[in-house]
């Protein structure tokens, strides 16, 4: 009897879809859970790095070395009351943090953690990530509008202008990488072998990309959307408890995403540093290299925060439109010219 049911199940149309569905669901859960643990510890990491930079101890009370601090914070935010302002647009007010958090998670679907370790290995992976990161602004601008508060609104407007500006130069950086690689697939981008001079030629783009990434994630020195000194808390002034926590988690997940993009586009993803494939380096699994590189870039984010004062808004706009945009446009042309002149323009077919 059981056999018949098994055969029916096995031969049925739904078997393939159900089986694939369960596998994909498991993969998605693993990625999200691991990512959220990393995000939780990124807050701890940030506080420790800032503390070290300012000659303080940082969190050291909850658990050994303060390691349980992220969980204490999470528990606190979960049991606090969510306050919705009287004049707020309730639906959009609650939708905004969910949107930010969801968009910060969906990008990871196309990130290759190791050779073949990717949930969705799609053809246009890099464009997908670019699209997702450009959507991140909606959570903030909707939050600013729905809060019905002047501070929130100003924060939202600042964020919209800032993220649209820096997306342009990020787009040109991605174009220059695509020119050298000839593929939009992230695994292909990581695996593409570049000669050393090409790596040298791309290094200014790495700088442009990283700084634009700081602006894209609203991190210091470009954290004007939540500039405390003039806007109270910017777009998240009115948010409390879990709604605030979702914005926080989204921001850190976005930082990880920019770090992962930097790693995949410029630092060789899961491959050992500089693509040196010699024995002791290749023994380490690719995913550890990937995580290590991401953490190194994350450290840069925190280092910048501990070091630089906030930009003024006109300086921010000047940097984006008058320096990065012309420079990255010019550099795309330089890279295309060099590729054309040396005959190394990729033409995979």
């Amino acid at each position, binding site marked *: 009897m059981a056999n018949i049911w098994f055969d029916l199940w096995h031969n049925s*149309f739904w078997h393939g*879809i159900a089986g694939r569905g369960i596998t994909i669901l498991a993969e998605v859960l693993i990625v999200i859970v691991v990512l959220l643990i990393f995000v939780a510890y990124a807050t701890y990491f940030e506080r420790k790095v800032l503390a070290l930079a300012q000659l303080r101890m940082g969190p050291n009370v909850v658990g050994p070395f303060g390691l349980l601090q992220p969980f204490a914070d999470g528990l606190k935010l979960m049991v606090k009351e969510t306050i919705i302002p009287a004049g707020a647009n309730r639906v*959009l007010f609650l939708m905004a943090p969910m949107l930010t958090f969801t968009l910060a998670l969906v990008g990871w679907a196309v990130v290759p953690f190791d050779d073949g370790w990717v949930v969705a290995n*799609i*053809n*246009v992976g890099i*464009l*997908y990530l*670019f*699209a997702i990161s*450009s*959507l991140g*602004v*909606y959570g903030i*601008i*909707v939050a600013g*509008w729905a809060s019905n508060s002047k501070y929130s*609104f100003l924060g*939202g*407007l600042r964020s*919209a*202008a800032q*993220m*649209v500006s820096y*997306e342009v130069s990020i787009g040109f950086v991605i174009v220059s990488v695509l020119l050298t690689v000839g593929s*939009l697939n992230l695994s292909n981008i990581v695996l593409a072998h570049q000669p050393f001079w090409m790596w040298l030629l791309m290094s200014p783009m790495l700088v442009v990309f990283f700084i634009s990434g700081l602006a894209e994630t609203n991190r210091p020195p470009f954290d004007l959307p939540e500039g405390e000194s003039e806007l109270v808390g910017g777009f998240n002034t009115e948010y409390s408890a879990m709604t605030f926590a979702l914005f926080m988690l989204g921001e850190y997940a976005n930082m990880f995403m920019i770090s992962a993009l930097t790693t995949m586009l410029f630092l060789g993803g899961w491959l050992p540093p500089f693509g040196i494939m010699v024995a002791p380096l290749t023994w380490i699994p690719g995913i550890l290299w990937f995580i290590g590189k991401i953490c190194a870039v994350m450290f840069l984010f925190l280092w910048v925060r501990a070091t630089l004062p906030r930009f003024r808004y*006109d*300086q921010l706009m*000047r940097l984006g439109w008058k320096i990065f945009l012309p420079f990255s446009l010019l550099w795309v042309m330089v890279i295309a010219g060099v590729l054309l002149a040396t005959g190394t323009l990729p033409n995979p*077919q």
Partner: protein
Amino acid sequence: MIETIAFYIFSAVLVASAIMVVFSSNAVHSVLFLILAFFNAAGLFILLGAEFVAMILVIVYVGAVAVLFLFVVMMLDINFSELRKGINTYMPFGIFLGIVLFIELVFLVFQGWVAPPSGGPALAAPAPMLTEISNTRALGQLIYTHYLYVFQVAGLILLVAMIGAIVLTLRHRPGVQRQRISVQINRKRSESMVIRQVSSGAGAPKL
């Protein structure tokens, strides 16, 4: 099977959100429904196997154009009763336009898509089969190889529109202090400060 279900979901949400763009009373809600419509259109493109077009739709329309829409609409203080005043004078013309467009669409659907007989040269390079190459590459070949000049002309038209917008909005306001970073960096100590020896009780001499 799954594709069919997805198609109907995307289409239904697309049509519903497009209707809500027109009918919702709040302009910000209209823009948000417009964004939802863009998303579902992107979903339909993916079902057609045009993933590149779908991503570009999201990046350009949702990621940039709709952000600016939202930016402007949020800052407007619209009085809807004021706007509705003229509705009776414009209504007949609007209905007329709608009927014309609808009849054209109906003709298109029932006649099918037919290239004009003079379209021979334009069809010299038909789209390559998607089974052979990815659609990003197919689009690249069409735009940048076969129809490069047409594409460049389209770009120039956009450039003219952009210059026009800048010319219309550019104002030179007097009294704006601009930051010149090169001047700031190139300042020397000798040209910006003077060290004076001041004897006590005498005060600093005038510069």
